[in-house]
């Protein structure tokens, strides 16, 4: 193959070397384009991953809930019969999921699901001394729940542990109640109340959550809310967060359940992320176009400049195909050289970002890296763009009549 293209390679390289300044300028131009595309991709990717991690770190990817109670008409309505004009909306009491242990077993075995946590939560009052606060008391199995929300790494005081009669509280809640690790609080859900000992304080990343969240063993919640053996939600963590919506729809079809994906509960965030992604794609497309046009214009000029040399090559016995490939190779080489330089430049920009873009705490805002797969992809696209840009000039060169080309 190398021998087969030896002539084309040799001539293409020499032509590029001969037009040194042109070559240099367009390689730098391509490199700038490649660097911009790469850097923006990496930055947006880092930003999105960071946003997602922050959002999804404190919530489940998919939540399974019991069906809501609804008023159903007793008789099928006749055509034209408006029925009762006004129907009382049913109250939604806390209800257990039917056969939740069986569901948990099935979900545990499902591919792509990395965490399954049955929970039972509801509104309660936490009290210590004169201070009373409304809390969201959530009964969990700590081992299972840490696969949804990593409570251990979010622990700021004590050690997260949920034995019988123990609880984990949000940091702000603890401040409001004036409690520390080891202190007791009283939790009541209207009908019943319990005394729980705080084993750890956690920072969930949002003040509102830190002010409200109180974790207790599932059993405590069951007795507080008077649902013995029950669980009202099953929270899932997925390996691929973007699969949440499909999985949620699948589960709702298979089981008599209501499901919510994180995309549904964070619709605004998802649309913001999508808008970002569309903008990135647009920027990429425009830069790609500029790169293609840049390479093409250089090669068009080169074909005009080298008309006579092309004629000589043809007179010497170079075929139309060989002449065409000489220019296609030049395009590919410009794309390749530009992408190498551009990736280097992008790495420098990433390093600069990590060095200069720091938050108030002096730490980098978020970590961005250039993944090898992206680098390869960018290089491949630049190479392809080079070849694409060279098609028209190459065909033009190949179409030159040798006698005419030599006369010019």
């Amino acid at each position, binding site marked *: 193959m190398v021998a087969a*293209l*030896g002539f084309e390679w040799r001539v293409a390289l020499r*032509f590029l070397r001969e037009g040194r300044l042109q070559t240099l300028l367009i390689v730098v131009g391509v490199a700038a384009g490649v660097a911009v595309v790469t850097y923006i991709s990496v930055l947006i990717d880092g930003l999105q991953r960071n946003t997602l991690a922050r959002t999804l770190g404190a919530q489940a990817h998919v939540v399974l809930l019991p069906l809501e109670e609804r008023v159903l008409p007793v008789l099928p309505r006749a055509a034209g019969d408006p029925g009762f004009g006004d129907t009382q909306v049913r109250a939604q009491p806390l209800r257990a999921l039917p056969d939740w242990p069986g569901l948990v077993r099935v979900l545990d075995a499902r591919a792509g699901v990395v965490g399954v946590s049955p929970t039972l939560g509801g509104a309660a009052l936490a009290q210590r001394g004169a201070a009373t606060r409304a809390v969201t008391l959530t009964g969990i199995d700590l081992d299972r729940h840490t696969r949804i929300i990593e409570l251990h790494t979010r622990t700021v005081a004590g050690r997260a542990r949920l034995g019988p009669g123990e609880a984990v509280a949000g940091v702000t809640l603890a401040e409001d109640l004036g409690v520390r690790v080891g202190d007791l609080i009283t939790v009541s859900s209207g009908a019943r109340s319990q005394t729980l000992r705080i084993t750890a304080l956690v920072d969930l990343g949002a003040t509102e959550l830190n002010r409200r969240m109180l974790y207790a063993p599932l059993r405590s919640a069951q007795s507080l809310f008077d649902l013995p053996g029950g669980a009202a939600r099953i929270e899932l963590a997925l390996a691929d967060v973007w699969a949440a919506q499909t999985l949620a729809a699948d589960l709702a079809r298979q089981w008599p359940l209501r499901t919510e994906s994180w995309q549904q509960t964070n619709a605004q965030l998802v649309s913001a992320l999508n808008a970002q992604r569309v903008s990135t794609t647009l920027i990429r497309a425009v830069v790609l176009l500029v790169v293609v046009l840049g390479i093409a214009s250089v090669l068009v000029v080169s074909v005009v400049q080298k008309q006579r040399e092309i004629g000589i090559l043809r007179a*010497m016995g170079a075929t139309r*195909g060989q002449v065409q490939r000489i220019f296609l190779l030049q395009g590919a080489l410009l794309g390749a050289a530009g992408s190498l330089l551009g990736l280097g430049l992008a790495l420098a920009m990433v390093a600069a970002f990590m060095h200069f873009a720091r938050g108030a705490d002096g730490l980098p805002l978020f970590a961005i890296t250039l993944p090898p797969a992206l680098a390869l992809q960018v290089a491949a696209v630049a190479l392809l763009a080079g070849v694409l840009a060279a098609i028209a000039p190459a065909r033009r060169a190949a179409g030159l*009549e040798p006698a005419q080309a*030599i006369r010019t």
Partner: protein
Amino acid sequence: MTPAAPAPAPAPAAAALVRLRGLRKAYRAGLAGESEILHGLDLDLARGEFAALIGPSGSGKSTLLNVLGLLERASAGHYTLAGTDVEALDDAARTRLRRDAIGFVFQFHHLLPAFSALENVTLPALARDGRVTPAVRARAAALLAEVGLAPAMHRRPGELSGGMQQRVAVARALALAPALVLADEPTGNLDTATADEVFALLRRMHREAGTAFLVVTHDERLAARCDRRIAIVDGHIVADDGTAAA
């Protein structure tokens, strides 16, 4: 196979390297403003001949050379090169035949400026084989030595004098040992002394390689030193003092 065209100087067909019968070349053929440059030429060139093609400017010499060199197609008539009817060949086959059978020397030497003298001479083989074998390189170096450029063979054309460049062009034309070398005013751009030197080189290479040469020239002096003179005026061959020798 022989077309029924009048042949004023019929040659033994078997020995003919080039055989033209009723060859016409027109530009914009069939369109408004058509201009015919060659009006039905009959011409034979034998293997190993050394002929001059003479005539005033605009008489069609270069056009004839382009047609002979397979750089342009004839509009009508027959052209047989080394026994092959070239008008029947497609573009790729014409390119191959041109590469293997014909060498060119142009008036303005037309070397590739980005390649050294030696590389220019090896280019035809590189185009043919995709690589330069040691044997090809050795032959190119030998050719350059023969034209007296051994010390300059690694220099670029821009670093060589006009006469030297033309000698490189001669070496390149002979690189693949073609049967026919077409030279379009090879000395037209050189001073008399250098022109004589290059012409002498052509004659020497002709003697040594046995290649047929057709040399377009304005220079009566040089034409006189060729074995045969073919004169062309307004697209007609008006004089031919030799016959294609067998």
